[in-house]
């Protein structure tokens, strides 16, 4: 885990397991599935441009990240220029333009957690997974982000994995928690 390289925010997605020929066919299938998802979400929000953020959030909650193709489709159907969408998906930190790992690790670095040693937890987790915040390991197992307050301040320092909050963390406990995940 500690020697793998990482996907950063600007790298194009990598899928080494699909070979070229099969890949093109599968890509088209993935493309169609994605487009169906996007259309479904847009229809749910009645195609309103003001619902842009909610549309993107819904697409991402099902697809785990926002491929460029999805953004193009949203731009087309909501009649919103791509540069505005580009600004929005980079302005708001909830969005990811690269594939995410199976497990999303969020370390809270809010004030209460910071004062109780969140930096050490972050250092430990970075060391254990081998990536920095904003990155995903190459096996697509873990994605790491820092978060500015999960609202569990009384339990600081706090680490969240796949939406499950682990409070009163220490460097040792944080390593233990990560080991549970496949």
């Amino acid at each position, binding site marked *: 885990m500690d020697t793998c390289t990482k996907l950063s925010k600007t790298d194009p997605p990598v899928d080494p397991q699909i070979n070229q020929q099969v890949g093109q066919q599968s890509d088209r299938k993935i493309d169609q599935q994605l487009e169906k998802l996007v259309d479904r979400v847009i229809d749910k929000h009645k195609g309103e441009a003001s619902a842009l*953020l909610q549309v993107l959030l819904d697409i991402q909650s099902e697809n785990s990240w926002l491929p460029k193709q999805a953004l193009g489709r949203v731009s087309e159907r909501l009649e919103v220029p791509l540069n505005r969408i580009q600004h929005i998906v980079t302005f708001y930190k909830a969005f990811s333009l690269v594939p995410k790992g199976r497990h999303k690790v969020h370390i809270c670095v809010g004030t209460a957690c910071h004062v109780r040693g969140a930096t050490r937890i972050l250092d430990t987790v970075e060391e254990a997974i081998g990536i920095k915040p904003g990155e995903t390991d190459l096996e697509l197992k873990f994605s790491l982000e820092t978060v500015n307050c999960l609202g569990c301040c009384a339990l600081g320092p706090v680490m969240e994995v796949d939406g499950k909050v682990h409070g009163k963390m220490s460097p040792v406990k944080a390593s233990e928690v990560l080991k549970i995940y496949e």
Partner: protein
Amino acid sequence: MPRLNTPEELEGFRQELVSKRDPNKPCISICAGAGCIASGAAEVIEAFKAEIESQGLAAKVDTKGTGCPGFCEQGPVVVIYPEEICYLGVTAKDVPEIVSETIKENKIVERLFFKDPVTGVRAVHEYDISFYKAQERTVLCNNIKIDSKSIDDYLALGGYTALAKALSQMTDVEVLEEVKRSNLRGRGGAGFPAGRKWEGSRNADEPIKYVIVNADEGDPGAFMDRALLEGNPHSILEGLILGGYAIASHEGYFYVRQEYPLAVENINLAIKQAESYGLLGENILGSGFDFKVMVHQGAGAFVCGESTALMTSLEGRAGEPRPKYTRSNIKGLWNRPSVLNNVETWANVPHIINRGADWFNTVGTDSSKGTKIFSLVGKITNTGLVEVPMGMTLRDIIYKIGGGIPDGKKFKAVQTGGPSGGCIPEDQLDLQVGFDELTQAGSMMGSGGMIVLDEDTCMVDVARYFIHFLTDESCGKCVPCREGLRQMDRILTNITQGRGKEGDIELLEELSETAVEASLCALGKSAPNPFLSTLRYFREEYEAHIREKRCPALACKALISFYIDPDKCLACGICRKKCPAGAIDGDKKIIHIIDQELCTNCGTCFEVCPAKFGAVTKISGVPVPAPLAQEKRMIIKKAPKESPKKNQGKAGKNE
């Protein structure tokens, strides 16, 4: 689900609910807020349900997951009604004992009680707990009593009485006047008089108006709104509908940060329930008033807590604030009159309508009325949500309610108001909590974050932390904020890493003035506050960092060295084993030494050295003493002074 078409039907339904509930029937309430869930409350709730079922008590005992009462550090929190016996830190393993002892035998399980950190006395009932005693939980009190996913619980406790009263007995103008008379000030940060904001919108010449709940609680360290949103969503919804009625708006929005998924879920559920009961939608309770509510999620941007940025975000754009030359209650969302208020502000409205503005004015100071919920966190013994009347002193909050500083450490400062606020030192602890009082002291009320700092906290690092936080959260549009913060972050980081120079403080002050005067929005204008307040009260720390390369709190990693005091080291070897850098040299009976070249300043040795020895020390600003010569490192059993005849030779085998 019955549709309630008139206030009478609502009242009738409520009476029916109440009559079906036996106040003496035991009820096990387990907090199901995010904090307790993180500590295992879901398993505890399941365990109780299973145990009650298996003991054949399901008909006689209620079990429910409830809203958050705010005592998260001691969770999972369980309160057993009607006695209000309170157990803390309950695990699934404790459940059979609680059921057999307390539920069946009316006996107490003492080890699960709250133990007062000062007196050591155990508190049996919730109301005995020192954390709660001095609080006045007007807004928060119902959280532990209701299942937050049940509208019936809210109704049984008197919910929606205010709405019924307003729609049937008061005109919309009367509702507005009542809120004005109450002197309710916004609980989100600025403390603007809510009634005046509402009036501006009401009088604006535009038929379509909006009311908005700012549930984008972004201040790190603050979680008051989370407890209300998750725990008692109907209380906020009722306030919002009342607000809509008062200003003649028919459309309301909740803007909830997506980092609070449970809150999003519970608010959406509450809205559906209210709609099905006819408390939301068309012709509410037969009054002719229509009102609908939409929920929007945030997407991870602190700046969207600023009201104009929030509205821009609601319009589907990047959350860039707008200049407030035309106030947003006149031209806000879609350029229409919009009343935006914080969650806690809205939650106070039903109380004001039910009990009256005069009642509201009996609590608080001259300029700050009512109660305020604070999140008391950091270096404090009793951590959690605290609701107190405005005017209580900081000293009472921190010591009477908070139980003081743990581990025998000394209080240093309390940080209020989040990244827009400042630090208040010890000599100001008798300050009464209120909007203007806190502002005059160089801080601000903010949304209610109250972070306690002790002697081990470096105040320069506190300023650096907040400025750094804002470099990433600023929208980046205007120069004073974007570039000002960039440079302030750089300079403060340099100072904490020993690269501070004479003139840095003046540079920081210049940048502060520009940001305060010329920034586009409140984020930029208030960004220098943490720096300015720590400079005001802790200037000597800045000067020590810059001139002596010394961190008085012994916290800044780059400015401290770890040193093993040879007079105290007894070569137990723990530090050497735990050191991740292999930087400690020593052996049995050989005084241990840290190799400063290899040391990474992780602090592990400091933490693991047994308290009875306390041999590992932190040094800052002075060179580390030269290591002891090899021959002096052997630990010799000290001979008693009265017998000079004893051989004081080589290291013995005893000890």
